[in-house]
């Protein structure tokens, strides 16, 4: 768990994705190869702006043990301004969420390995008022 999380820290802490200079497509999570261009891919790593809107969402009532404190919580399919779609926790009152709602990235805790283990941080979304 630890090495796997550590290798991806850069992409979890911020919305660092990839961009294909050949066909102007954005990807998140980042990819080494553009699925459209294949061998002609010209992939560049770039940080995304972090603003988007809710395409769809679900409210989780039956949460796994480590997320019990946060339930009920919202998981949303979010479309960023560059067209990239991400699935993320949306930190807001489940009563407040709606399709089309404007959201922005936020740096939050994902969880921790008990009281003596590591703390996992990463990107979530919050309403953009």
């Amino acid at each position, binding site marked *: 768990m630890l090495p796997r999380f550590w290798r991806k*820290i*850069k992409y979890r802490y*911020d919305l660092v994705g990839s961009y294909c200079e050949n066909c102007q497509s954005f990807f998140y999570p980042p990819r080494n190869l553009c699925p459209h261009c294949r061998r002609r891919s010209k992939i560049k790593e770039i940080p995304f702006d972090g603003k988007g809107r809710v395409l769809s969402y679900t409210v989780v009532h039956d949460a796994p043990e480590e997320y019990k*404190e946060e339930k009920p919580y919202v998981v949303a399919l979010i479309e960023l301004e560059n067209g990239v779609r991400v699935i993320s926790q949306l930190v807001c*009152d489940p009563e407040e969420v709606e399709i089309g709602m404007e959201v922005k990235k936020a*740096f939050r*805790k994902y969880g921790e390995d008990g009281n003596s283990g590591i*703390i996992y*941080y990463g990107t*979530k979304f919050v309403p953009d008022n």
Partner: protein
Amino acid sequence: MKVGVVSYGTYIPIYRIKVEEIARIWGENAEAIKGGLGIYQKSVPDVDEDTATISVEAAREAVYRANINPKDIGAIYVGSESHPYAVKPTATIVGEALGVGNDFFSADLEFACKAGTAGMQMCIGFVRSGMIKYGLAIGADTSQSKPGDALEYSAAAGGAAFIIGKNPIAEVEETYSFTSDTPDFWRRELQPYPSHGGRFTGLPAYFRHVTSAAQGLMDKMGLKASDFDYAVFHQPNAKFPVRVAKMLGFTNEQIKQGLLVPYIGNTYSGASILGFAAILDVAKPGDRILLVSFGSGAGSDAFSIVVTDAIENFERNPTVWDKVNQGVFIDYGEYLKHRDKIRM
């Protein structure tokens, strides 16, 4: 060559709990507490927020407003008394989240509520010496209080981040510190909550250090209270900064803009610098600001800061007061959950 604040960013969690709600649980008189502390409500972090997340959010706003390449930041200092890890620096998490790279000076600082201003002084020294282009100093806390303790009415969460460099929006003219061994407030290793010396915290601790630092700075510069347009002092409650301002010859008009504590509580390492940021939000070129922090143990850092013309083209929205005035009120049960005081 002018060195000072090139940019700043702030973060205050959106949740609030009212003094009435805490007093209701402990059977205390809310009006008496509000009258005594001058605090009506305080900010509460979300269950997935801590000093690292607050530091990153404040720092991101500062970097965004500065419109600089994060890789030009050559130092990161995070001052707090609630670092998420006892051993593993918050500054490493901030550096990674901002994309600063690996080429930077860094440490976590701890000096009760003045660790953030201590970081600012270190960055000023680095920039003036030419060792770095920009330094990032952050003061943030999610302060802990024992349920039922008097501190529970004030211990709040928030933080501010300052990018220090040349061509500032606010030049730091001078800084001066006053430090002594005074046991007014402490927390021993492995203890979850701090202890304090009760009424002893006032005179020999807060008032002596804040007045000595402020007076020391003004004497060094040959300035008096009326030479400043604004002043902001550490604000553990609303009574102390108002009284210390009066002792030093400042008016309520000079301190009003930076006095946030009645509405968000004591944000510890964030307290005086969030107030300072609220002043920068409205300050005009030429305005002179006195900033004095206080950290138990004890010490005070005083700064004389003059706003430059560069502030006129600087993005200052959303303002600190915008963030103070928002808020979702929660009850004591939700508050305990947010503060991780119940184990599941």
